[in-house]
C-alpha cells in the first residue's frame, strides 16, 4: 500500500525474505474495494473467490489450515477488462454517449492510468473533476498519477483533497505525511513519536 511505488517497500521485502507473492497497490485499490482505512490488515478470500473478512494474523493462519470437505469451486472470473484495452474501448465509447458523466470520465482516467497512458489519464481526470467527481478514490488516484509524473506539490494537493473527503482514512493521511516528511519515515526507521504528535496536531487544528 504505497503511493510512492515498489522501491520504498523493497528493503522490507528483502529483509523478510518473503516466499509468497509481494504485490504493490499504489492506487489503494484494495482499500477502496474493501473499505479499510489503515494498515496492516489480513484479508481472507475463500476457495470460491469470496471475500471472508479481515482478521488477526493468528486467526488467518488457523483459517488457512482448517480442513474443508465442502470447498466450493471458485467463482473468480478472469477479467479481460480489469485493466485492459477492452475496458478502455468500452469507456471511450460510453464517454461519447455519456459525455457529462463524471464516473465514466473517472473510470476512463483510471483505465488510462493502469495502461500507462499518463497524458490521456490526466486529461480524463481533469474532465471528471470538472464534471463534479468528488470522491476520495478519484482524488487519490489523480494524486498518484501526478506524483508518478514527478509533480509532487500537485500530487500532494490532490491527496489532500482525497483526505478532505475521507478524513478518517489513515492510508491517505500517513502517505501525505511520508511525502512531506520523508526524514520521519525513511532515514533509519519510522519516527512513531513524531506520528503521534502529528496526529494530535492535526486533530487540534480541526
Amino acid at each position: 500500500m504505497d503511493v510512492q511505488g515498489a522501491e520504498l517497500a523493497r528493503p522490507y521485502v528483502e529483509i523478510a525474505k518473503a516466499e509468497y507473492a509481494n504485490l504493490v497497490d499504489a492506487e489503494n485499490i484494495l482499500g477502496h474495494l474493501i473499505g479499510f482505512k489503515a494498515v496492516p490488515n489480513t484479508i481472507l478470500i475463500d476457495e470460491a473467490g469470496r471475500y471472508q473478512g479481515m482478521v488477526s494474523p493468528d486467526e488467518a493462519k488457523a483459517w488457512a489450515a482448517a480442513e474443508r470437505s465442502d470447498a466450493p469451486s471458485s467463482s473468480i472470473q478472469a477479467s479481460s477488462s480489469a485493466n485492459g484495452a477492452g475496458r478502455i474501448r468500452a469507456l471511450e465509447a460510453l464517454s461519447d454517449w455519456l459525455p457529462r458523466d463524471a464516473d465514466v470520465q473517472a473510470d476512463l482516467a483510471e483505465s488510462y492510468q493502469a495502461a500507462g497512458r499518463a497524458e490521456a489519464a490526466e486529461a480524463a481526470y481533469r474532465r471528471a473533476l470538472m464534471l463534479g467527481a468528488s470522491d476520495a478514490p478519484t482524488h487519490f488516484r489523480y494524486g498518484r498519477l501526478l506524483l508518478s509524473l514527478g509533480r509532487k506539490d500537485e500530487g500532494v494537493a490532490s491527496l489532500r483533497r482525497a483526505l478532505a473527503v475521507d478524513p478518517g482514512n489513515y492510508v491517505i493521511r500517513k502517505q501525505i505525511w511520508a511525502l512531506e516528511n520523508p526524514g520521519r519515515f525513511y532515514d533509519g526507521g519510522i519516527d512513531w513519536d513524531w506520528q503521534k504528535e502529528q496526529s494530535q496536531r492535526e486533530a487540534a487544528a480541526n
Partner: protein
Amino acid sequence: MLKLLVALVAVIAASSAARSARAGDAIAISVRDRLLNLDVHDVDGRAFIPMTRVVEAFGAKLEAVGDDALSVCVEDDVCSIVRTDGTDDRIAGNGDARLVALSAVPELFRAHFDWSDAEDAIALAPGADPAAARIGKGDPMPDVTLPDMDGSPVALSDYRGKRVIMYTWASW
C-alpha cells in the same frame, strides 16, 4: 418579463439540445453474446434506453412492489428496487415505454461495461466492475490485478480454487 421568460426557456432548450447530440441514435450493446440495438432517448441531457429490452436481455424479472416501486431481479436473491413515482433519476417513463439510464444499467443489472471484440461493440458483462465496487463479507471478489515488485501483473484469478490470505502493509 414575459420576453425574459421566453428567452430563458429558449436558452435552456438550446442548452438541452446541445447536451443531447446523440439522442435519437441507436446504441449497440452486447448482452450475453446477443447484440442489441437500443434507441437512445434524451432525458434531462442524459442517455436513457428502453428498460424492457434490457430486462429481457438479462433474463431479469421486473415486479411491482406496492404502487410506486419495482424490483429488478437478475437472480432470485439479487434484486434492486427502483421507484416509479418520479423521484428515482435512474428511470423515466411508464409501462412498456419505461426507460433506464444507460449509466444505471450496471448497478441495476449487476453487470459492468466491457468491450466485445466479436461484436465490435460495448458489452455488458456479468458481475461488478472490478475497479469500482465496494464489497462486503461473502461477496465475490473481483479479479484484482496488481503488479509484483518487478512490475509483472498478478491476478487474483491466478489463485483460483485456493484459499488466499492477503496481508496489507506499507513502508510508512
